[in-house]
């Protein structure tokens, strides 16, 4: 049964559907229950509830001109559109809209790789292009560039970048929105805009210089609802000559302060790809997700002192923290960088230890890709689905997906040493008694900050479980905000919550976004509610 958009009658909706069919063809408008099912978010924590963000249908245009016509028709009938590239950003909403009853604008048919240039090192693609497409194209044409991609690799470079998604290589590339250069956008009134040098007729530098002249508006179209991106360029990394992987370990808990300092310096000089953080002592403290009795005892009386934590680490007899450095570049350069990294850390932490784990000329061998992870070498994969089990018999239970919760922390050892306390307080605020480890290891997807935070698991069959998990998610976000953290990206379920925390000067940033929304999209046609930005008529809908 069709879930209609808010305020749209069945008759008006039927007229809109007919208009869409007239534009894209009957076979590319989907309104049957079976078809709509495929646009639901497989990881929805609201699965099968009245709140689930189920679309009314989907329309799949094949060209920019069709997108423009669909947008004009949507304005006429006041039917909201939710554009997706491939809709594979699971944990962040997938293909389901922010607003129940929206029509998904599925851009999968716009899947042309317009250009990959391995002389100036960029690409220009349409939204339906996936990382598999781009990788296959580079391989088939023997081009001398690497694709920086997320894990898994089935998504779209445009969709991922517009969600502020990430990769795993050098900082300049793994911030995918940061690596973009030039956009083409259909505005909510159907007008077509090109940003940066794309606005200059005859320019051949659209994918080289992102600023052009005047204010740069590209950011409005990422995590926003001000237009539909139909083309986008990205800078690409020239294929490196060699790779070296090296582990650096520090023995004590407090040594993390020094380890972070050294890694920050390496990262900010552009010498390493994404550092991969670990904690051998934490790994030694859990078995199948269950804390060992020593850790339970350590954490039993509230947050322990640094001295007690150090005693615990010493007793375990393994390093407190480790980090894997990923060095790409000329052979001699990365060997020199590895020597430099060891020397810098040894000067701060005499007890530090080092292990070279890989040194290989590129392209990588299959053995290296399997050992360290395909995404570090720009090879798209779905291997994560064979590693993160979705069954009843292991820690990934319930098995029906997860919602990530990655708070933004300052890139300091001190922040990591205190973050567990923040998580523990959040759990305690909602009566959760699980043991929190004091050994937080961050993810450095975006290069100048740390991300950390426990997510929640989802069941399609147990609504009470999901309700409880939502309470926990809210408690975590609320506590994180007290510490000045909060997520960089989240599922539509929590976007209002997250955005509400960015509240400086009585939510002046959100009010600015809404002022722009009212100006460029007065009918609220594009993704109403996305990241807390509602059209004027719907601001009372904020969760």
């Amino acid at each position, binding site marked *: 049964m069709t879930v209609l958009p808010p305020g749209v009658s069945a008759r008006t909706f039927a007229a809109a559907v007919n208009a869409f069919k007239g534009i894209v063809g009957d076979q590319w408008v989907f309104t049957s229950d079976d078809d709509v099912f495929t646009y639901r978010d497989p990881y929805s924590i609201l699965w099968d509830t009245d709140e689930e963000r189920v679309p009314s249908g989907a329309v799949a245009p094949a060209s920019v001109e069709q997108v423009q016509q669909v947008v004009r028709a949507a304005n006429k009938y006041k039917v909201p559109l939710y554009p997706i590239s491939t809709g594979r950003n699971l944990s962040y909403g997938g293909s389901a809209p922010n607003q129940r009853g929206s029509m998904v604008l599925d851009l999968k048919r716009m899947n042309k790789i317009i250009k990959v240039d391995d002389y100036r090192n960029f690409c220009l693609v349409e939204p339906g292009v996936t990382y598999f497409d781009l990788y296959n194209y580079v391989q088939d044409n023997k081009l001398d560039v690497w694709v920086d991609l997320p894990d898994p690799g089935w998504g779209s470079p445009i969709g991922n970048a517009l969600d502020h998604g990430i990769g795993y290589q050098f900082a300049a590339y793994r911030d995918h929105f940061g690596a973009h250069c030039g956009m083409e956008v259909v505005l909510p009134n159907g007008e077509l805009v090109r940003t940066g040098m794309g606005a200059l007729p005859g320019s051949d530098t659209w994918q080289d210089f992102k600023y052009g002249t005047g204010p740069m508006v590209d950011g409005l179209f990422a995590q926003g609802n001000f237009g539909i991106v139909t083309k986008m360029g990205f800078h690409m990394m020239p294929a490196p000559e060699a790779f070296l992987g090296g582990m650096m370990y520090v023995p004590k808990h407090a040594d993390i302060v020094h380890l972070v300092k050294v890694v920050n310096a390496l990262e900010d000089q552009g010498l390493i790809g994404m550092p991969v953080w670990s904690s051998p002592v934490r790994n030694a403290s859990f078995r199948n997700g269950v804390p060992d009795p020593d850790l339970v005892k350590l954490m039993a009386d509230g947050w322990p002192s640094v001295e007690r934590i150090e005693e615990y680490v010493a007793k375990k007899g393994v390093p407190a923290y480790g980090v894997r450095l990923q060095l790409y570049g000329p052979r001699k350069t990365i060997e020199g960088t590895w020597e430099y990294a060891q020397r810098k850390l040894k000067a701060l932490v005499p007890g530090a230890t080092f292990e070279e784990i890989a040194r290989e000329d590129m392209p990588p061998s299959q053995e290296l890709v399997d050992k360290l992870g395909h995404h570090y070498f720009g090879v*798209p994969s779905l291997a994560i689905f064979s590693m993160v089990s979705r069954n*009843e018999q292991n820690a990934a239970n319930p098995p029906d997906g997860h919602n990530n919760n990655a708070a933004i922390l300052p890139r300091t050892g001190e922040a990591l040493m205190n973050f567990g306390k923040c998580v523990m307080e959040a759990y305690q605020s909602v009566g959760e008694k699980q043991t929190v480890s004091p050994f937080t290891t961050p993810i450095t997807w975006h290069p100048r900050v740390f991300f950390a935070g426990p997510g929640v698991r989802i069941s399609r069959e147990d609504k009470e479980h999901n309700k409880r998990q939502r309470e926990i998610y809210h408690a975590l976000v609320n506590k994180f905000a007290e510490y000045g953290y909060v997520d960089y990206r989240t599922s539509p379920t929590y976007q209002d919550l997250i955005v509400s925390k960015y509240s400086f000067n009585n939510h002046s940033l959100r009010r600015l976004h809404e002022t722009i929304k009212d100006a460029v999209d007065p009918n609220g046609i594009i993704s109403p509610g996305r990241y807390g930005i509602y059209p004027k008529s719907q601001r009372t809908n904020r969760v």
Partner: protein
Amino acid sequence: MTTEPTSPGASRRGVLQAGAAAALASALPFTAAAAMAKTARFHKAVYDARFPEGVSFGAEMERGGTPTHAIKGDITPFYNSLYRQWKEAPTLIAGLTSANALFALELMANAAGMRVAFRAEQRLDRFGAPQWLLEGPPGLIDAAALSAADRDWGLFAARLAAACPARWSAPASSTAACAVASPAAVDERVTAWVLAPVVRI
């Protein structure tokens, strides 16, 4: 062997008398080759060689003349080859893999105009005992549920898959649960399935 419907009305077991079981079972195809000659032409079959059921599923598919692709957990190479194929046209495929592998393929299949036409997934019942949950065309599932005792599940699943229609046309499906005689040793949901192109009416 036990069978029970997973939801009221979902299975038609209630209308089937025990005496009819043998007749229905005998109506099932007993060789994949014979079934495929009538009902299916698989572009390819994929199986996870970590599972005993997968190995026998793959062997039966090969006996029926279907090209097979073996994996060990990671579905990526098969996904990428299908991805290229389905850009040209959707094709009928079958598999016995983890539920995770099917999850990845199913999302790609949906976008390419295909659906899961048959699914047999190993799950735990509320008492923790393994069972197969079957979902697919009503006649096939009812018959399968009644003839599922103590058999080689990989072989049986291959024959069920081969008996599926080659096109998916309507959301009419039946579900049933069958006890597992010998659960898989690997700690993942083992799933047999068919992905079929949608026929729009």
